[in-house]
């Protein structure tokens, strides 16, 4: 196997344009890498024949000189995206056999630019999970292991297949989605970059809905530069998504100067949790120093309602999910339960949903149903929406005070072992999202950058949170952090 799957998107683009490599060579190298990595369970569907055809077409296009940045770049696509004629199952049994007759707006934009799809990527069922263990395909195994251990670790979730693939060089980049941290947490756990853009930057059309006021797609890549390149291709107004913003999309890559002199970086005191591991504290302090050394001004700030973000999120997200997932009724697509003689339509609905949804999805749908039900709507859902307003106002106030970006840890710990969280109560698992959900609730852009390793040699990430619509500036701050951190570690190949 050559080393071509290890290239970044930017490197591959430049080499293809220079005629040093072809897309077909890079694509085939990724395919070879994927074929020897089945143990990671990162891909749920492989589309290698189509990938080779796309690569050949891209090579023709590159030879003609008509080559957008992503032309010929092999990517992995989270199973949450609808891809025409290719299984799109959201890692759920209830969508077993579903092959969309249409293509999501985001993926169509990638193929129009000449990008290559290697396949669909494993994830938590309906993006509900933080460890990729709720998937009907089984968990993704992280390419990372603790030093001296063979214990299988989670790559994080819900975009676990995307994260593992990029970390293990099974794709040059991947698409993820992020409702409460599902891009940033797995990016942090696997030592890669992941950005969730401002709510409304990317069209949600054709992306299986979890919680519509929180869901955003974004890139997961090997570098901040790659994130800028891939994000730009994903953004833009889409008449099919009424919440997509009709705003010009900047050239994000051109914004990467690395110059952050005079930028004000806020450090929120509420993100310092009781019992947070020293290593996370240290990582955060190092990040502050790096940005200060790069010329930024570090400012202590307060986001007083931070503590309430997680409970508000776990009212709002399940409420929206219970509504969105009502469409899975065994009538229009996917799987219908086997019915007995005498069973009517009610049995068809309830048995189909009992057999089709996994445990965590059922639990969230029922919680959502409860908080929206008559008599409880005001006490839970409406209250949570009001708390959401306060959380958003916290951010607005610090941005109004001149803060350009906010630095926090991405996760409260490094990756944990598969199965380790099986016996703890669900709320413990939800705590994984404690630093990331605030960003979704406020609709802001957030990026995770790998900046260090823990004592066991596992990657840790820092999160930068930006002003709405200012992804270009945020990416540039992330670029400065990435340059200063100089994180180059890769998992030792054991698979």
């Amino acid at each position, binding site marked *: 196997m050559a080393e071509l799957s290890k290239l970044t998107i930017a490197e591959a683009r430049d080499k293809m344009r220079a005629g040093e490599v072809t897309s077909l060579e890079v694509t085939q190298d990724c395919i070879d890498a994927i074929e020897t990595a089945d143990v990671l369970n990162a891909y749920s569907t492989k589309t290698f024949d189509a990938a080779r055809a796309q690569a050949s077409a891209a090579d023709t296009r590159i030879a003609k000189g008509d080559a957008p940045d992503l032309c010929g770049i092999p990517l992995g696509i989270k199973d949450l995206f609808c891809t025409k004629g290719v299984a799109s199952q959201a890692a759920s049994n209830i969508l077993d056999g579903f092959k969309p007759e249409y293509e999501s707006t985001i993926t169509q934009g990638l193929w129009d630019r000449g990008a290559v799809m290697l396949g669909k990527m494993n994830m938590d069922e309906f993006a509900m999970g933080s460890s990729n263990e709720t998937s009907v395909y089984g968990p993704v195994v992280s390419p990372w292991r603790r030093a001296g251990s063979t214990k299988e670790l989670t790559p994080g979730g819900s975009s676990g297949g995307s994260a593992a693939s990029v970390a293990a060089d099974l794709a040059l980049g991947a698409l993820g989605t992020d409702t409460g941290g599902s891009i940033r947490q797995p990016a942090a756990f696997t030592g890669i970059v992941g950005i969730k853009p401002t709510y409304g930057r990317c069209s949600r059309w054709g992306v299986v809905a979890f919680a519509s006021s929180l869901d955003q797609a974004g890139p997961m890549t090997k570098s901040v530069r790659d994130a800028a390149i891939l994000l730009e291709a994903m953004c833009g107004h889409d008449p099919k998504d009424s919440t997509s913003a009709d705003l010009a999309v900047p050239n994000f890559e051109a914004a990467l100067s690395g110059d952050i002199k005079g930028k004000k970086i806020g450090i929120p005191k509420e993100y310092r949790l009781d019992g947070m591991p020293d290593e996370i504290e240290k990582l955060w302090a190092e990040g502050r120093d790096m940005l200060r050394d790069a010329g930024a001004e570090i400012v202590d700030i307060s986001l007083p309602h931070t503590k309430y973000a997680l409970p508000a999120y776990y009212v709002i997200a399940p409420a929206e999910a219970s509504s969105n997932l009502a469409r899975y009724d065994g009538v229009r697509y996917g799987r219908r339960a086997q019915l007995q003689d005498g069973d009517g339509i009610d049995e068809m609905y309830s048995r189909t949903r009992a057999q089709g949804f996994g445990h965590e999805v059922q639990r969230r749908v029922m919680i959502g149903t409860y908080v929206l039900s008559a008599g409880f709507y005001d006490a839970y859902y409406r209250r949570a929406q009001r708390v959401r*307003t306060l959380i958003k106002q916290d951010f607005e106030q610090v941005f109004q005070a001149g803060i350009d970006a906010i630095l926090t840890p991405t996760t409260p710990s490094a990756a944990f072992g598969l199965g380790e969280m099986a016996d703890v109560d669900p709320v413990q698992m939800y705590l994984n999202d404690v630093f990331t959900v605030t960003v979704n609730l406020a609709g802001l852009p957030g990026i995770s950058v790998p900046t260090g390793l823990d004592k066991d040699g596992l990657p840790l990430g820092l999160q930068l949170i930006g002003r709405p619509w200012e992804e270009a500036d945020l990416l540039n701050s992330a670029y400065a952090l990435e340059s200063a951190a100089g994180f180059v570690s890769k998992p030792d190949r054991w698979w």
Partner: protein
Amino acid sequence: MSIDKDTARRVAHLARIEVPEAELETLAGELSNILGFMEQLNEVDVEGVTPMTSVTPMELKRRADVVTDGGYADKILSNAPDSREGFFAVPKVVE
């Protein structure tokens, strides 16, 4: 707020998810636990705070009220578990 077995049964019915009688007690416990976590929200003074209903302040766009799409029932039905003569088929609804 604690959820009892009857409430769990009612929620499962509202959500159209079949839950065996023997599992209702466990389910009630799980749901109660999660709701207990949400109780923290009661500490927040939300008096006079407008609930957030739109993430970014924007007017929803309108489009002309004309047919722009459609005419492909076969594609719509292609993923149906059961379809007949151009329709979705379900168990008998009306006696």
